[in-house]
């Protein structure tokens, strides 16, 4: 059996869907963050797959930028989560409604 790009794309689709389902299912903001990382990784895998298939380096460049933006996003997101959890320990995503004025 030859591993072709379809296998990679289907695996990436499954990973993305697991991430989406986790984001909807979980209420702990930290775990929701991890699920977003799963979705980002699924997209990265797709980019690298097409980069390999089409012999084009642009896909790998995009993955590089996705990694940087993901790192920045985690830093800012964790800052917000720390600010909320310090004021109210054991907060879940539902409790963010307390931001209402």
């Amino acid at each position, binding site marked *: *059996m*030859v*591993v072709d790009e*379809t*296998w*990679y794309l*289907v*695996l*990436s*689709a*499954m*990973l*993305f*869907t*697991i991430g*989406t*389902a986790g984001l*909807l*299912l*979980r*209420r*702990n903001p*930290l*775990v929701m*963050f*991890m*699920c977003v*990382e*799963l979705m980002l*990784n699924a997209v*990265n*895998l797709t980019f*690298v797959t097409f*980069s*390999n298939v*089409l*012999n*084009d*380096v*642009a896909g*790998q*460049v995009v*993955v*590089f*930028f996705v*990694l*940087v933006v*993901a*790192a*920045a*996003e*985690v*830093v800012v997101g*964790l*800052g*917000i989560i*720390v600010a909320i959890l310090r004021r109210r*320990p054991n907060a879940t995503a539902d409790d963010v409604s*307390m931001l*209402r004025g």
Partner: protein
Amino acid sequence: MIIDTVVFAVAAVVILVGALGVVFSRNPVHSALMLVMTLFGVAVLFVAQEAHFLAAVQVIVYAGAIVVLLLFVIMLLGVDVAENLSTDPLAGQRPATGVVAAAGVGLLAVLAVRAVQVSTGAQSVTLPLDAGRPNIAVLAEVLFTDYLFAFEVTSVLLVIAVVGAVVMARRPRSEEADGADGEEQGVERHTDTESELA
């Protein structure tokens, strides 16, 4: 090639088990460790597809920095308590998740199969990967010529993220001056707001 198939199968199992572990672990620490497992699996598939530099960056940045940052927040804030999944505060969210997951798998699998048929498979002429040089050399040359502007904008983004994180993590000056009372005041103020809302 039998080796390719075996590597893909092992990596795919590792990725999917890790991803399901992230979603279904009750303890956030376990979720973070399962996330590391998934990230390593993706790095293996990057190597299998000749993206060696990205595989290294994946392990260093994701497994080394992002997951450690998540674990630091979990440990420092002491939020590593098991989540109570028995109640469903938002009625109908669980069934909706099931529907979204089923539809997502079906739709994305169809898309993945179709995408290969739609793709012409035309090989790149401007930015080829196999120019007889190592992967990292090709990537670096493109990054510092064609994508230089985006690369510089990235550095601005990182500075903004650092400044934002410091501003949000800092306590307001009034609370700092009061010392330990600041925390209590914060809680009190919050309780007041809650009673007002009620």
